[in-house]
């Protein structure tokens, strides 16, 4: 139990007729970066809001740091940025953090540390309303870092950031993870999740479709072979990998479910059988392919747009 930071059981939220979150059961373990992945409107933010005690679940339950969501001890141990940064526009970035730090019973040192971590110290005296979208987002993350919370919940933290800002944000999350910080990160950007997350939960239309490591989700690596004559190549490949492990691809190539370390042996066998090898390579499914395969029930056109944005 001590290794589980967040656990939900059949967590459900219904708004009128619309089921925003449908029986989601997920687990976030201590020290991991958990990617919460899904298209816009899939129920990611609503789930996070329930974990933070902002929204009451219609049914189901959740435990955060061993407490009910919204319990002062659960809230105090969590730093979060949900659905964009919410601050007082007339206050400077620094004063906004000072207000939030006072709520947490913290002093000015923590505020300066958080500002420094997000590279905001120089503009800390400017009013929040004068900040660019990216700076507002960074201030939101700075507020989430106040008081070194056990769990960091970041809802689409790279929203509104330029490519350099996105890279900085990812680096920050990786840095935090290396220091043992548990991070629950929601995103619709598959590349982001693939790069920095240990485990992912995929949500679509309110339902958690799967929960596993990135590697498991992408499946085993396979070997692709293009060689002629095709029949000899197929027979040889089956001889090496086994009959069931070889599939004929639409374009005439072969896909072998074998460990990549068998590639030299496979190549040697093909050459010895007198086959002309045009191409032999390892193939790994991208998370994006897995994701589309999984969410094909939802609207793939709008998804692609989101992902490519």
């Amino acid at each position, binding site marked *: 139990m001590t290794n589980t930071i967040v656990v939900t059981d059949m967590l459900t939220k219904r708004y009128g007729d619309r089921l925003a979150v449908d029986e989601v059961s997920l687990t976030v373990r201590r020290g991991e970066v958990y990617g919460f992945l899904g298209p816009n409107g899939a129920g990611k933010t609503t789930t996070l809001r329930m974990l933070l005690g*902002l929204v009451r679940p219609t049914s189901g339950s959740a435990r955060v740091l061993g407490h009910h969501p919204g319990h002062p001890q659960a*809230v*105090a141990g969590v730093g979060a940025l949900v659905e964009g*940064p*919410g601050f*007082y526009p*007339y206050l400077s970035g620094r004063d906004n953090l000072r*207000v939030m730090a006072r*709520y947490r019973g913290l002093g000015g040192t923590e505020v300066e540390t958080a500002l420094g971590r997000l590279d905001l110290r120089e503009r800390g005296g400017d009013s929040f309303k004068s900040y660019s979208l990216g700076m507002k987002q960074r201030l939101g993350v700075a507020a989430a870092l106040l008081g070194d919370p056990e769990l960091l919940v970041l809802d689409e933290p790279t929203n509104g950031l330029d490519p350099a800002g996105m890279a900085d944000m990812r680096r920050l999350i990786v840095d935090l993870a290396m220091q043992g910080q548990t991070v629950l990160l929601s995103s619709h950007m598959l590349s982001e999740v693939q790069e920095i997350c240990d485990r992912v939960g995929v949500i679509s239309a309110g339902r958690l479709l799967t929960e596993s490591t990135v590697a498991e989700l992408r499946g085993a690596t396979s070997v692709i072979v293009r060689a002629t004559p095709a029949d000899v190549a197929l027979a040889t490949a089956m001889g090496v990998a086994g009959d069931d492990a070889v599939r004929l691809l639409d374009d005439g190539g072969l896909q072998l479910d074998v460990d990549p370390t068998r590639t030299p042996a496979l190549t040697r066998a093909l050459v010895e059988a007198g086959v002309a090898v045009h191409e032999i390579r390892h193939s790994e499914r991208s998370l994006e392919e897995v994701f589309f395969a999984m969410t094909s029930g939802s609207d793939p056109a709008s998804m692609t747009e989101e992902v490519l944005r």
Partner: protein
Amino acid sequence: MNALISSTRAELLRLRKWPAVWVMVGVWLVLNVTFGYVFTYITYATGDATAVGEGVPPAQLLADMMPAAVPESLIAGMPMFGGAIMLILGGLAVGSGYGWGAWKTVFMQGPGRLSSFGGTLVALGVIVAGAVVATFAVDLGVSVLIASVESQTIVWPTLSGSAEAIGAGLLIFGMWTAAGVLVGTLARSPALAVGLGLVWALVVENLLRGVGGLLGPVEAVTDLMPGTAAGSLAGALGGTAQSGRDGTPGVLTVLDAAPAAWLIAAYVIAFAVAALALVSRRDVI
């Protein structure tokens, strides 16, 4: 308790640095001096029959502006425009946070919603107390100035009279601020809260009182409304005496001082508890 203190410190910081708060308190002080002293003094000095002092003997006008009359002038303007300004303060302080998404950030900091929102109420209470004391000080300063200019002997207001007036001021301002907090919480938007709140305080209550004069059952209700209670408290403590007749807007003589004060205190508690209950139970979207 610690959580409430942390929250109050946080709220005082953000309210203190909010220009809108200073604008509202400043506008109240200017209006108070303008209607309480400037117009009266012009009437007195020029002998013109303005709306403020029509038919009032000059000696009475002068007496109304002396330090001894500060308790009366302190509360005379509170039921009407003072209350309206405090309602705006409460409505903005709470309603704006929903539009900005700041409540969401605040409720994620840990003290718990009751403590966090309780901190807002305490901080607003501090501002209200500051506004009342500042009004008393400004009124006293202006009246001493007028007394010196007019070469009058300075007679200070009695301690009990001053304490009563300040207490009544705290109740009246506190009630309207709490009313603003409640509509701000209900509306979750500053514009709707302030708009509806002002329509109620300035229009609906007056209309209902007008109807109440004709219909007995309606009058039974209007006699217990927030505006009636505030106006009656001001009236009972001498607010109406200022111009020598029942003329100061919002000042009434419906209830006696004690029932009016208890009724106002009940409203303060009811508004605050209702707002707290809503905030603690409702989803933050």
